[in-house]
């Protein structure tokens, strides 16, 4: 029995299936994901011009709301918004309003009152962007820039764009995600994206302490032994390992982790010869990846960063389009009534 529509996805689409928030990849179909990738492709060209601007968000105000600090993700969102000609406000909330005791809802309502059109939200709690979109400021387009362990959908989409650039397709691909899946919002979004886009196999490679319960239900297979898991891989995605994991008795030591699950040249040689190496960054060299691999010919880590701006431009422009369409629909409804 459910109390109301249980799907978290109805929230991020307009009635005719356009994106109006970007909270999670759950509930988004292959056509929509492909649409995002195609739109991002068209923006890559913008980044190569001398004047790197298009007027899609001219006159719109985008607020970067980072409740958890992140220089890189925030910078790419900021650049993406500026290339779309939006006015951008960066707020590092962790050091401002909420520390003065103002509730999250009150902070957001104040920002909404300043006529913001879009919030880019990063938060340490899973579901925070959902909460904002559903209960606080439904008239503002919400872009999830990473929430707790839940989702990091723009990161996953830029990874998909990178894979498509190098492999031209998803069908038949064998992809492994290695490391701390339990705490990773990136991994959850990647597994979802790869499944929807039609990858043949998504493998997670990690010790049992770093895997969520019933992880297979997310759409992947599990391999504890990395050497076995590298076999036939077309793509290997390394996850960042947080140093705190040792203290929580999830791992004995960085050294043992690197020995078992770190990507070095020997292990990479077990994969398909054209296997590409990815990492969402920032990299811990010598913890999850050897420098020679991170900087080697199979690494596409810097392509990921470049693609990040294009993906964020795509998602921001699409969500703003949906939000505007929704507002017009509601205004038309209001005028009729």
């Amino acid at each position, binding site marked *: *029995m*459910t*109390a*109301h*529509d*249980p*799907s*978290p996805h109805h*929230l991020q689409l307009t009635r005719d299936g356009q994106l109006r928030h970007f909270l999670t990849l*759950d509930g988004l179909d292959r056509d929509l994901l492909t649409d995002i990738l195609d739109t991002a492709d068209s923006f890559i060209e913008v980044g190569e011009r001398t004047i790197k601007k298009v007027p899609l968000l001219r006159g719109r105000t985008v607020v970067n709301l980072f409740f958890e600090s992140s220089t890189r993700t925030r910078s790419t969102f900021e650049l993406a918004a500026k290339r779309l000609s939006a006015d951008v406000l960066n707020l590092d909330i962790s050091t401002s309003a909420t520390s003065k005791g103002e*509730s*999250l*809802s009150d902070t957001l309502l104040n920002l909404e009152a300043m006529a913001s059109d879009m919030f880019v939200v990063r*938060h340490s*709690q*899973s*579901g*925070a962007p*959902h*909460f904002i979109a*559903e*209960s606080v400021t439904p008239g503002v387009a919400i872009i999830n820039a990473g*929430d*707790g*362990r*839940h*989702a990091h959908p723009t990161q996953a989409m830029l990874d998909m764009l990178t894979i498509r650039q190098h492999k031209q397709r998803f069908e038949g691909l064998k992809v492994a995600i290695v490391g701390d899946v339990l705490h990773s*919002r990136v991994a*959850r979004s990647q597994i979802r994206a790869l499944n929807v886009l039609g990858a043949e196999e998504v493998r997670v490679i990690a010790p049992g302490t770093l895997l*969520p*319960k*019933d*992880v297979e*239900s*997310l759409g992947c297979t599990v391999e504890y032994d990395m050497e076995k898991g590298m076999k036939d891989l077309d793509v290997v995605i390394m996850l960042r390992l947080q140093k705190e994991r040792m203290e929580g008795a999830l791992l004995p030591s960085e050294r043992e982790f690197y020995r078992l699950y770190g990507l070095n040249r020997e292990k990479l040689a077990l994969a398909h010869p054209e296997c590409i190496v990815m990492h969402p960054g920032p990299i811990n060299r010598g913890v999850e990846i050897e420098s020679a691999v991170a900087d080697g010919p199979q690494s596409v880590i810097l392509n990921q960063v470049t693609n990040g701006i294009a993906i964020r431009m795509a998602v921001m422009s699409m969500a703003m389009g949906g939000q505007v369409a929704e507002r017009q629909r509601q205004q038309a409804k209001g005028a009729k009534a």
Partner: protein
Amino acid sequence: MSHTSNQSSTLLLITGGRLVDGQGGEADNDALLIRDGRIAATGSQARSADVDDTINADGWVIAPGFVDLCCNLREPGNGQKGNIASETRAAAHGGFTTVCASPETSPVNDSGAVTHLIRDVAASRSPIRVLPIGAITRGLEGDLLSDMAGLRNAGCVAVGNGSRGVRNARILRRCMAYAQTFGLTVMFSPENQALAADGYAHDGLVTSRLGLLGIPEVAETAAVMEMLLLAEETGVRLHLSQLSCARSVEMLAEAQQRGIKVTADVAIHQLLFTEDALAGFDSRFHVRPPLRSESDRRALVAGVREGVIAAIVSQHQPHDTAAKQAPLAATEPGLSTIESVLSLGLELVDRDELSLTDLVRALTSGPASVIGRTSGLAEGDMADLCLFDPTGTWVADDRTLVSAGRHAPVTGRELTGVVRMTLVEGRKAWDALQA
């Protein structure tokens, strides 16, 4: 309970309707006569009396008043979430004639003085009976024994831990041995805190997908096993509060077969909802213990049906809206359930998961026996009654809910089963016509 009116000396006659006593007895009601707060006569003998007031119960069910073993009245100390007056009135609206008040107040009910305060406020403001549960450790801190004899003497019907833990098994063992000395029942919600850690949702499919922090089943089952063994050793009467796992029900049944003095309850929402309720990050369903899987839900319902689980409780936890207006992890656990218990229970009856008798038993004689009280519809029984229309419908919303907590489990759609009248010792604690 208020004694301002002297209706108890009047003669009240209830005609029509169907009697369901929750102990297997079901019959059409000819007439039920109430005198001096008790059921004085039934049938034609009742009819002959010259009465002051007659209630026509045609089409209604006449059941003993509901008894709740776990209710948070929020007084003293949490007036922004509710108080004894508001929450006991909500309970009367829900058909309850007796509620056990959780010790988790501020200050905690760990002394006779707090118990007296609760009883005094209830005596003047509550339309129903309020039976306090004392804290098992001082301040519910889990370290030191509370004044259990003092709590009992002040009127506590049991001692419990609310939703908090006890430091370790050695302290728990001493709590049980000490409670046993005074014949006090220990009401314990089993949760191993080290295993539950920072979790707030069932460690399963939904938490894995949404990246929520899970509470594994073993956080409950390991605690249940430990408590059963300690109860067996100390001989205390143990009541396990708010089970959530299939495996706990199995261990409970096995312990009962071994002759261990143990009973248990389950919260109404555990019987209807599962982890799926959190799929949209709906903070209302942030409850503790968490909603678990469908197979757990089925096992809990079977436990009630088979009588292994004696009672369904509301686990009523009214909150102010701010407590639920935040990202899921930052919200406070608990639902405002007490007014919806009957309607939710009737959904289980409608789906043939429980019979009406099972439901009424788990809301009346089952919980009453846990706290050493009786319940029934026979001559001489206390006239604590719930009269409900099993086919009437209502919607839980700001207009209908009496509780200060508006986060009821089901809002925005029709519920079936309306409490028409709640009588406590023959006095009207709730009358839908006058509400």
